[in-house]
């Protein structure tokens, strides 16, 4: 038989089993070297730093979670924060992507040669770049005067540069939040109530019985606190009435959706007033005590019947009666919410006036379930010498035409920067921070010409947006997670402050806005206005003035203060409103004085040009326009926009779901990039819808290397590109952008051009 002995057998089996035993440890070693599986961060392991989110303007307070190595792992809402109630929206949750984005601006850039179309930059050290900025600003001062240097700003970075400019001696400034967004709404409400709405709007949604959304696609705009309160309202079984030409998210969750024909909203509002007044559904005591001009209003709306409105808005008269009765029945716990971005068709201040009037006759202003009186903490500003008085300011530019402009009109500033402007208020230098005017301010061609006409352009930004390509100097700012900014003192039900504290050191060679402003200020000789070295000193001083401290704020993030004034009107209480008459002006004496319609009058805004579809744009809940498209976390959620097209239109053009199309407007302008089609019944057959802010074209060359937002580049169409018709609101200068039309091209128009 076999001569196999035991020793041999054991040797062989030993090798085999050793092989089996060795494999697990080998794979573990392999794993340790080659893979780094990250375990989730546990609550008790994390270091938490308070922050205020900057991804949108709701500015929720939250906590930045850092792991043991000091890396940012996640951002969670602050439980006691009234804006977020401990739950951030998707953009806030994904805010850390802003920090980790590898396409960020990393070093100051200086333009080396100025050619048409192609921008060449070289990296520079901070000292050189800041010296250059100061030098150029002094040059403009010499040649044209300090007033000719304009500041376009946005967000929490803005105030640092506002201080710089005012200290220097220029008050030529504006932000897109004005003319492009809120100014028409604020003017309408201020004219009526003597007070605007600001942010966050003091709408008492969680206590209301009836919420009317006319111009507010909440749920697609993630106005965090309000979305939460609307959700609570749905739980309660409250009534939600949505007026929207398309079947928005909130329309799907509403009690009633009124599919209005675009541009006819004022007709609906006037018809509602008609029903509410004629059927006695208004709050009689409230109107009696607090309003002025009721009789004139009553006479004025008699001709605006629901039957008339039906022919204009295509909403059945029965629905108009029904919804008016719902609103009246809920009075005074009813809110007609105007939303934001209220500049639509050029008569927008009149429309927001109508909304304000409607709220007033339903008695909701200053009442529970309506609009509460918000209060904010007044933080003392650090002492400094008085600001010099410039020879002319944004008011001279804006209020010439628009009497009730309450802030700088950005497009007026742009117009004054054009080569064809020959008047006294010339703008020859621009300082742009935290805004991309090519996307946000219409029209693109005007802005390009204005920028080309400048002697000097400075851009302070975190990302290489398209605007950086027009700058002479680009200064990289640190993101909100890496810097200090002013304390948040937004108004709310209870006055509160929130601290933004840097969680990590600025990445790359970026600097906080306050530091950049201070450095420029020192170089301009403004030492007196910058007696502090570190902005933390300023904040600590401010906090101590109101009985708190940096220590405390770093621990709690948000601090409340007691109210000094009541939140609601007491029944029968005497109240003086900040208007000419001291009452809520249904009939506006201000408007009358300046020659505008004192009561809103319906104006027809025309029809589609034949063969063209109305361009409706809006928001997505997971993006803040161009700001977040390159954010790796938010890009993961959605990277391609879709063009909503009605099936009838799809049939006419021969479109399929997912097909790429280009857009063309009546002026012949063709979109740079294509967009994918979504065939849906949720849009009207005479309109198309797409989200605002896509179609990024930002690309610059730095020392021969390309720098761009590579994820966002070329995806979708920028609506601003297609907008040619800007209807200026005569009262405020607000830019109405919703009367714009496009047609669909199924073939790539740029290829055709190249061929021919």
């Amino acid at each position, binding site marked *: 038989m076999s001569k196999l002995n035991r020793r041999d057998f054991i040797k062989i089996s030993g090798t085999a089993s050793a092989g089996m035993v060795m494999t697990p440890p080998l*794979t*573990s070693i392999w*794993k340790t070297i080659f*893979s780094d*599986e*990250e*375990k*989730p*961060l*546990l*609550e008790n392991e994390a270091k938490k730093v308070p922050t205020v989110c900057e991804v949108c303007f709701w500015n929720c307070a939250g906590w930045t979670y850092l792991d043991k190595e000091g890396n940012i*792992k*996640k*951002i*969670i*809402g602050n439980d006691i924060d009234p804006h*977020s109630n401990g*739950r*951030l*929206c*998707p953009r806030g*949750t*994904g805010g*850390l992507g802003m920090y980790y984005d590898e396409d960020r601006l990393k070093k100051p850039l200086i333009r080396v040669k100025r050619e048409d179309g192609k921008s060449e930059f070289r990296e520079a050290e901070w000292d050189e770049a800041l010296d250059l900025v100061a030098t150029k600003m002094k040059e403009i001062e010499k040649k044209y005067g300090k007033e000719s240097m304009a500041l376009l700003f946005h967000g929490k970075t803005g105030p640092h540069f506002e201080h710089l400019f005012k200290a220097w001696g220029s008050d030529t400034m504006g932000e897109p939040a004005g003319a492009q967004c809120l100014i028409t709404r604020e003017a309408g409400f201020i004219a009526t109530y003597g007070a605007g709405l600001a942010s966050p709007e003091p709408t008492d949604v969680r206590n209301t019985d009836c919420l009317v959304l006319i111009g507010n696609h*909440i*749920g*697609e705009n*993630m106005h*965090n606190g309000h*979305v*939460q309160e*609307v*959700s*609570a309202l*749905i*739980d309660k079984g409250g009534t939600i009435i949505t007026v929207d030409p398309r*079947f928005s*998210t*909130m*329309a*799907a*969750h509403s009690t009633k*959706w009124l*599919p209005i024909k675009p541009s006819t909203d004022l007709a609906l509002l006037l018809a509602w007033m008609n029903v509410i007044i004629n059927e006695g559904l208004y709050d009689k005591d409230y109107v009696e005590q607090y309003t002025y001009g009721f009789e004139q209003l009553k006479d004025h709306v008699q001709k605006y019947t629901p039957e008339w409105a039906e022919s204009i808005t295509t909403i059945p008269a029965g629905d108009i009666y029904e919804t008016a009765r719902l609103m009246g029945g809920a009075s005074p716990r009813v809110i007609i919410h105007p939303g934001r971005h209220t500049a639509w068709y050029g008569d927008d201040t009149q429309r927001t006036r109508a909304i304000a009037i409607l709220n007033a006759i339903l008695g909701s202003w200053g009442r529970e379930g309506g609009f509460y009186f918000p209060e904010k903490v007044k933080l003392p500003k650090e002492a400094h010498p008085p600001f010099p008085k410039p020879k002319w300011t944004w008011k001279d530019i804006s209020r010439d035409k628009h009497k009730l402009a309450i802030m700088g009109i950005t497009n007026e500033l742009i117009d004054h920067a054009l080569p064809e402007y020959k008047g006294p208020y010339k703008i020859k230098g621009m300082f742009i921070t935290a805004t991309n005017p090519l996307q946000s301010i219409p029209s693109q061609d005007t802005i390009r010409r204005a920028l080309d006409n400048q002697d000097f352009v400075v851009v302070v930004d975190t990302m290489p947006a398209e605007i950086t390509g027009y700058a002479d100097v680009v200064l990289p700012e640190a993101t909100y997670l890496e810097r200090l900014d002013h304390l948040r003192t937004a108004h709310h039900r209870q006055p509160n402050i929130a601290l933004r504290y840097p969680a990590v050191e600025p990445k790359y060679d970026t600097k906080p806005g306050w530091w950049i402003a201070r450095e420029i200020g020192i170089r301009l000789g403004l030492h007196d206005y910058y007696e502090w070295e570190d902005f933390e000193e300023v904040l600590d001083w401010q906090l101590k003035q109101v009985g708190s401290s940096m220590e405390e704020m770093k621990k709690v993030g948000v601090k409340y203060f007691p109210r000094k004034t009541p939140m609601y009107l007491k029944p029968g209480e005497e109240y003086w409103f900040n208007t000419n008459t001291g009452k809520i002006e249904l009939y506006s004496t201000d408007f009358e004085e300046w020659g505008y319609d004192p009561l809103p009058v319906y104006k027809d805004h025309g029809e589609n040009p034949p063969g063209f579809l109305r361009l409706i744009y809006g928001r997505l*809940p*997971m993006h803040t326009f161009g700001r977040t498209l390159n954010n*790796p*976390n*938010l*890009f*993961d*959620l*959605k990277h391609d926009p879709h063009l909503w097209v*009605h099936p009838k239109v799809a049939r006419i053009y021969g479109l399929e779901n997912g097909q790429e199309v280009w857009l063309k407007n009546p002026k012949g302008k063709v979109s740079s990039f294509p967009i994918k089609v979504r065939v*849906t*019944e*949720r*849009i*009207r*057959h005479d309109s198309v819808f797409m989200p605002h802010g896509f179609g990024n074209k930002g690309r610059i060359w730095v020392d021969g290397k390309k720098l761009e937002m590579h994820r966002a580049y070329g995806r979708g169409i920028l609506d601003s590109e297609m907008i040619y018709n800007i209807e200026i609101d005569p009262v405020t200068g607000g830019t109405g952008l919703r009367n714009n039309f496009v047609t669909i091209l199924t073939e790539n128009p740029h290829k055709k051009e190249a061929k021919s």
Partner: protein
Amino acid sequence: MAIEVNKCVGCADCVVACQTENNVPHGYSRDWIVEIARGEYPDLYMHFESQRCNHCDDTPCVRTCPTGASHIIEGGIVKVTHDECIGCGACIEACPYDARYFHPEGYVDKCTFCDHRVADGLDPACVSVCPTTCMHFGDLDDPDSEISKLIRTRENYTLIPEAGTNPQIFYLK
């Protein structure tokens, strides 16, 4: 888990919160949003669904795993032990909900109901972050828990019940 579809606005906060909580690599997601729309303008209906692994009671994935890497832990949460997974893909084929995917490291990954948070008495990241508070998590075996009461009192449905997997996420109308 229970999700109220009459409140969900499809913001995808649940998706990005899961990503930052669980270090999900870019380009992958453990949960996702589906939109369902019906009708003809203007008689329309629409709602969103936040979908993820349903942690079924009759899991086809655990049954078919050849190494036992896919397993069920206390509470009914279905998990994958990364070091035991060979990456064969049987569980991905078995799942009717597209919940599972190959992680770039090679093993199979999916929603874990944030069991590391549940162990500490917290809700999963998606439930904790949802701004409309439309997501609820709790013990379905306890008849007095908030979630059991919700499911008892509200009209609800599960996804693809005909696949026979007995999913444990209930969508409340």
